[in-house]
């Protein structure tokens, strides 16, 4: 820096100025970055960090490693073809005695039970019946006598697989897959294979709600974009008021309206249209109605802004060139709303995928979406690995769709800029 100045000054008077400007610009950039930094650090602590932690939990496998460390070490050299040797049995016996003293048997039992149903009993019965460390050379017989499961290869493969430190077990389970005794990835047993159905259900409800929002949102957005500003601003209140009303209030309102002794059923009974109350809530119908209500503004607003940008001159030009109204609409108007349709649909779909509160309150047991199970495994059954794995799948889907959405909105802005 110090030796650059004189050479610059002798060469030409312009260079130091350029350099000074560049340096000023660099200082400005550093200052700008310094202003953004606090938020980045804050989000790292309150958002990115926690989510990274959740993702780590979906592959972390610490329970068995911590409770049965000697066994895991002894099994490291086991090829898995036959039963492990005496050394592994002795290690297990010693681990179990230590874990019983520390009261940690249940931790490992819970984890192993996920992988092999009934493992909890195997481990707890062994812990209960193992009086003392077996004499050298007799561990295999002693354990086999306490529980014959120790004479089975699958018992040992399960322990070895759960030995950590990382595992694909939860992620596979979230996709209804598992590893068999030979380590190959196979379909999970039918009683555990429920998650593909739940993902499919989540997908179907989200798609259905998106379709409903598009069907109902399109005419409204068209009306708002076509009416003179005074009228459309007034009507916009009908869209913005629900948008700003608490989700809980709206969900509560739908329950009050749709329950068996609710407003809708009472009115229909009174009018004589029905004899017995219809079942309108705590089923798929109720979920779709309430979710469509909540998400409709997210469809109408992007559609409205894309339609607002379409110049009426295009339609007039089409008409003057002899296109019938329907043709003009389908070939001139509709294609120009496609980016808006895409953005609105993606937004609604992304939001719908993660829905939890509304289905939990107005849905039946068969209408719960993936978020419900993530919450259930986190707070109720404390199967955090599986909760995290299901969360990871949902997060991946959301992030991918959000990237598409970002591209779509960006390209829209680019073309919008060119039009201006």
């Amino acid at each position, binding site marked *: 820096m110090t030796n650059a100045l004189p050479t610059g000054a002798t060469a030409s008077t312009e260079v130091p100025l350029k350099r000074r400007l560049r340096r000023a610009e660099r200082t400005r950039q550093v200052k700008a970055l310094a202003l953004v930094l606090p938020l980045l650090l804050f*989000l790292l602590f309150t958002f990115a960090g926690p989510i990274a932690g959740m993702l780590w939990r979906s592959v972390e496998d610490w329970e068995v490693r911590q409770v049965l460390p000697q066994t895991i070490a002894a099994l490291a050299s086991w090829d898995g073809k036959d039963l492990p040797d005496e050394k592994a049995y002795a290690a297990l016996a010693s681990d179990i005695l230590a874990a019983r003293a520390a009261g940690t048997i249940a931790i490992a039992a819970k984890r192993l039970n996920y992988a092999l149903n009934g493992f909890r009993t195997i481990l707890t019965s062994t812990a209960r019946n193992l009086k003392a460390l077996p004499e050298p050379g007799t561990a295999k017989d002693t354990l086999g006598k306490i529980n014959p499961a120790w004479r089975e290869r699958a018992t040992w493969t399960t322990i070895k697989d759960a030995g950590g430190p990382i595992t694909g077990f939860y992620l596979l389970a979230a996709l209804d897959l598992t590893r068999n005794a030979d380590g190959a990835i196979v379909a999970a047993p039918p009683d555990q294979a429920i998650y593909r159905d739940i993902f499919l259900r989540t997908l179907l409800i989200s798609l259905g709600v998106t379709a409903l929002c598009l069907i109902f949102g399109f005419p409204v957005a068209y009306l708002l974009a076509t009416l003179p500003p005074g009228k459309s601003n007034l009507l916009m209140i009908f869209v913005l*008021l629900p948008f700003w009303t608490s989700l809980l209030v709206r969900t509560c309102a739908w329950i009050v309206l749709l329950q068996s002794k609710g407003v809708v059923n009472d009115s229909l009974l009174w009018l004589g249209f029905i004899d017995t109350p219809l079942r309108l809530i705590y089923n798929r119908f109720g979920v779709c109605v309430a979710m469509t209500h909540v998400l409709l503004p997210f469809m109408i607003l992007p559609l409205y802004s894309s339609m607002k940008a379409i110049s*009426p001159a295009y339609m007039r030009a089409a008409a003057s060139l002899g296109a019938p*109204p329907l043709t003009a609409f389908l070939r001139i108007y509709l294609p120009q709303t496609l980016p808006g349709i895409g953005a609105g649909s993606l937004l609604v779909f992304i939001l719908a995928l993660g*829905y939890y509160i509304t289905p939990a309150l107005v849905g039946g047991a068969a209408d719960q979406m993936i978020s419900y199970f993530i919450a259930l495994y986190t707070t109720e059954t404390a199967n955090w690995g599986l909760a995290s794995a299901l969360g990871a799948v949902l997060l991946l889907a959301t992030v991918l769709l959000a990237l598409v959405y970002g591209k779509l909105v960006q390209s829209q802005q680019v073309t919008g800029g060119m039009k201006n």
Partner: protein
Amino acid sequence: MSDHSSLRTPSQRIAWTATIIVSTLVFIFLIAPILAIMPLSFSSSSYLTYPLPGLSLRWYDDFINSPRWMNSLKNSMIIGVASTLLSMVLGTTAALGLAQWKSRFKPLVLAFVLSPVVVPGVITAVGLYFFFAPIGLTGSYLGLILAHTALATPFVVITVGATLQSFDTNLARAAASLGASPLQAFRRVILPLILPGLASGALFAFATSFDEVVIVLFMAGPEQRTLPREMFSGIRENISPTITAAAVILTTVSVILLATLEALRRRNERLKGGGG
């Protein structure tokens, strides 16, 4: 402009009429549940349907005299105001920085800053639950305030950022050339001009926190339950008319926020119109 007034063919007229009919039905669908629940809160009976047997304020009385409901309202206010203030400080500084920062990483940073809006609530809540529990931040006001700030800040960055985009940077240069220090220029020139944008951002932030329930479900202890959280358990257990009173109170807050926002928008447009 409004080509519906010059509709020529019958088919066009039919299509327009259909649009109006469908839109009217959708407007009713959107607004009816909110309007329907309000009168029920003034009913004298505990039976949640029409016709109302008589009018009374007993459910509001119930609400006000219930320590549980009043505590939840207080919690919503504390957490809402605190996370609004925090997100305003973080979001405004970040928006100011982002407006000046030129880098090819900017879209990436922006996407990161805005991502709390897109990520499903349950995922954020589960992550925070795992992350905050070992450091004692679950079951505390601080934990909830931090979490709500993370959710609310993107809205501040968006609204303040949009205001800064329309801000004429020459004004800041003029202030500097007239001898104002950067801080003086910010306080006396920039701040008054971006104030409506800041206010909108604050309203969005407050509304985000005030309406949030998933994170509260995971992280709040019995002491920190917010109004939406109390409504959640109320709806789960058994809908009493007191919930409809709570709903009316929540909706009133929403309407006030929306009206303020609309007033700010109008004022902004008027100022722009006057300037041009």
